[in-house]
């Protein structure tokens, strides 16, 4: 059952071979045993989860089940869930019980899914290793001295260690794809505007996007079917016809043109990662695809552009955390200004404060044109690179991350080196394109390697098809960490 697909679980539930309550209890028990060593979850609430499971069982009995009914899903703690502590991995919200549900949470509710618990994450989604959480580091289940990646590290570990059948994540610069790659699972960040951001605690508004993290592309498709869709409460939510993201899973890959950016296979890429990716590409050729070399010339610029734009938006989005209406307030302070300063100095962690400072700086008088506007212009160039590339290919592939999972503490003192590891994922967010990661092998140290697939706008169904066909021909996605 730990390796069962969502489709299989759904069938077991429909056939009454197991109830949602039993299924949920199984995972809760597993979490009980394994989570202390992995720290993937911040909040669990057995009462609430089982109440939802019971409701789901009733739904199934009444014949009203949908594909995710009765299935426990781990929710990244960036989604506000009514009645649940919703911390965003921060001390600032460590006491915040949300009075409302995010759109994504509502969607899962409507589908009859079960909220298994809130997963750990880098504070305010700022990080690539899940080391910045107020609630402690998350461990990679393949090697507990290594990072799982971030910011959706808790969700990634939960799925990889089979503590949850599936989870949600969010991705601003790679925060679904990179942890998926580092923990050997599948994750997809859809086109910007596909999933409503209402109730998703904001980091960088023009880049943030929620998406599924699961054991396979097929599972991700089912999750995306529930998560995606127009929401009038998010002005950036796109009004499009409802899609079945699983509709093309079984299309053959013959004739698929895969673009390989030369910039993704250059210096900085670890040889063992390159090897695993090359093997995956060979498999794709065997499946009937052809590869063509392309160029995304402004790839290198995506890092400075991102580290201007994302902190800028974040610096403004995080101004609401001031100790006035909710969340942490410093226990001692003098006047109003002092209260603000102490609350924010104490409530935010180091990385968050760093990014707020950078963001404040690049927006400040005298620097706005040179930094912010400049970055927005380069952003357009980066998007145009992809536009050109997609004239020559159907999808773009490459490594998700330049290395396999690095050790805990290895990069946490050097923010710049941490930022550089986002080199392959960031440009996708800047352009608003969909991107996913599928496991494609292991590195020299036995740690997972992820293959990134980037599609054109709204090409999720195609990308999931491309991933699914690969997963039908290989079994990397079915591997589980030892001793788990």
């Amino acid at each position, binding site marked *: 059952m730990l390796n069962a697909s969502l489709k299989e679980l759904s069938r077991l539930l429909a056939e009454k071979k197991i109830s949602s309550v039993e299924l949920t209890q199984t995972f809760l028990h597993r979490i009980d045993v394994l989570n202390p060593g992995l720290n993937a979850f911040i909040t669990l609430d057995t009462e609430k989860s089982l109440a939802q499971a019971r409701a789901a069982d009733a739904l199934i009995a009444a014949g009203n089940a949908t594909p995710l009914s009765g299935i426990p899903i781990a929710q990244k703690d960036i989604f*506000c869930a009514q009645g649940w502590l*919703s911390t965003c991995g921060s001390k600032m919200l460590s006491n915040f019980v949300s*009075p409302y549900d995010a759109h994504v949470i509502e969607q899962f509710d409507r589908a009859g899914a079960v909220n298994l618990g809130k997963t750990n994450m880098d504070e305010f989604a700022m990080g690539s290793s899940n080391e910045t959480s107020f609630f402690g580091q998350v461990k990679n289940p393949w090697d507990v001295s290594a990072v799982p990646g971030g910011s959706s590290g808790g969700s990634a570990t939960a799925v990889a260690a089979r503590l949850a059948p599936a989870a949600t994540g969010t991705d601003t610069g790679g925060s679904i794809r990179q942890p998926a790659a580092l923990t050997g699972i599948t994750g997809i960040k859809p086109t910007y505007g596909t999933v409503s951001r209402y109730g998703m605690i904001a980091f960088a508004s023009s880049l943030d996007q929620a998406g599924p993290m699961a054991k396979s592309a097929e599972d991700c498709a089912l999750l995306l079917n529930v998560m995606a869709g127009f929401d009038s409460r998010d002005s950036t939510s796109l009004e499009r016809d409802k899609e079945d993201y699983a509709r093309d899973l079984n299309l053959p890959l013959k004739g698929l043109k895969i673009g390989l950016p030369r910039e993704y296979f250059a210096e900085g890429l670890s040889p063992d990662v390159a090897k695993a990716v090359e093997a995956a590409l060979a498999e794709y050729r065997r499946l009937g695809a052809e590869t063509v070399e392309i160029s995304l010339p402004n790839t290198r610029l995506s890092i400075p552009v991102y580290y201007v734009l994302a902190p800028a938006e974040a610096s403004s989005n995080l101004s609401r955390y001031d100790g006035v209406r909710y969340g942490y307030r410093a226990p001692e302070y003098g006047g109003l200004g002092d209260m603000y300063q102490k609350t924010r100095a104490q409530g935010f962690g180091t990385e968050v404060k760093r990014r707020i400072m950078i963001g404040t700086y690049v927006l400040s008088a005298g620097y*706005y044109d040179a930094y912010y506007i400049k970055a927005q212009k380069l952003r357009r160039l980066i998007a145009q690179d992809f536009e050109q590339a997609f004239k020559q290919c159907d999808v773009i592939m490459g490594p998700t991350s330049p290395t396999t999972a690095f050790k805990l503490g290895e990069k946490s003192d050097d923010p710049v080196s941490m930022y550089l590891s986002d080199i392959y994922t960031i440009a996708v967010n800047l352009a608003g394109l969909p991107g996913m990661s599928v496991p494609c092998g292991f590195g020299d140290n036995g740690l997972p390697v992820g293959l990134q697939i980037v599609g054109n706008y709204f090409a999720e169904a195609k990308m999931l098809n491309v991933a699914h066909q690969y997963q039908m021909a290989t079994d990397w996605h079915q591997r589980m960490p030892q001793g788990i």
Partner: protein
Amino acid sequence: MQWEIVIGLETHAQLNTVSKIFSGAATAYGAEPNTQACAVDIALPGVLPVFNRTAAEKAVKFGLAVGARINHKSVFERKNYFYPDLPKGYQTTQLELPIVAEGGKLRIQVGDYEKDIRITRAHMEEDAGKSLHEDFHGMSGIDLNRAGTPLIEIVTEPDMRSSAEAVAYAKALHSLVRWIGICDGNMQEGSFRCDANVSVRPLGVEKLGTRCEIKNLNSFKFMEKAIEFEVQRQIEILEDGGRIVQETRLYDSERNETRSMRSKEEANDYRYFPDPDLLPLVVSDEYIEQVRAALPELPQAKCERFISQFGLPAYDAGALTAARELADYFEATVAVLGGEAKLVANWLMGDLSAALNKHDLDIAASPVSSTQLAGLLKRIQDGTISGKIAKEVFEAMWNGEGDTDAIIEARGLKQISDSGAIEKIIDDIIAANPAQVAEYRSGKEKMFGFFVGLAMKASKGKANPAQLNDLMKKKLVG
């Protein structure tokens, strides 16, 4: 040294939408604290703004009413600063691309001259909450009901040269926003707030002096006094050889002085940037024309029409178009009456206005409707009652005694127009006052009034004045 005063005004007018600019919470004034502040208004984690289309409509209405250019594309930006009544830590406003661009102007009348004040721009933004400074054990209380109420900020060029001009502009603007129905103009409730930018310069010098901003002037009277004080203050400093510090000041009405609020050193760096949660607002030419078509006839056009269509003198037309409700009342009355515009005008500017003022009522609350007034004036027109009796009927109608005919009936006020009856009254009076008759006949023309007075009294005021005069003259002459 001759000094020239230079004033520019910034006005924040609350747009009278029923819901907020970026959320569906209510905007009604006077609710219990924080009962009209939803998740979006209190900036909970994860909430997002959704734009109220009617706010744009009202802003466009304003732009068209002052003849400004409307920007097809306008952008919302974030103005970042920290204050407890600003829940997000930024105000969503418009900077580089406001919805109303240049070209607008408002004509003001000061004493006997007219002047156009140029409107630089107008943009939409959200209002902040309120801080209550009553002591809560040394703390302030924050009410966010007002947070998110849509505002239009209207900025003028520094075209005003006196406090009188500034007040005239503020009044004209106040009247206009109410006229076109975008703002209720309630200054006590904070729906209409003015900030004055005041500076002085030696007469003849082109360079502007350093200005100070006087914030939150919420009455025309205070505006006048505050500007006067500030001008004096600045002149005194400059004449003493000092320099003006650019700063924000508040007017203290009790001491009649302005005092400094924040100095330049604390000037905020607002770090404006386009709000990534909102996309550019686009309005098409068709939309703009739709809004234009739905605009009511504006005061100036209506005034000119009252002159040409109804033949009213300029003064009357001006008085009647001071407020849209009054102008509408006038036209409605004339329509029912089928004419007699001057008669109606006289009654509106006279008796009706006097009664409204006496009882401190707006015309909308008048107990006498335009139909009722038309009914009254009809009875003057057709001779049923005299103008004088009509005043009595009017008062009775105001007090709820019914319509004109009912009151005339109940009080027996019908004018006596039967010449026979009038002649009888006259004959009786002439017979009873031989001495005075003799005086009159010997040349004392002033005695005429004496006889008319007696006749009026005898007829309880109901004798048709014209007929009475006529017959009285004939009979006295003999």
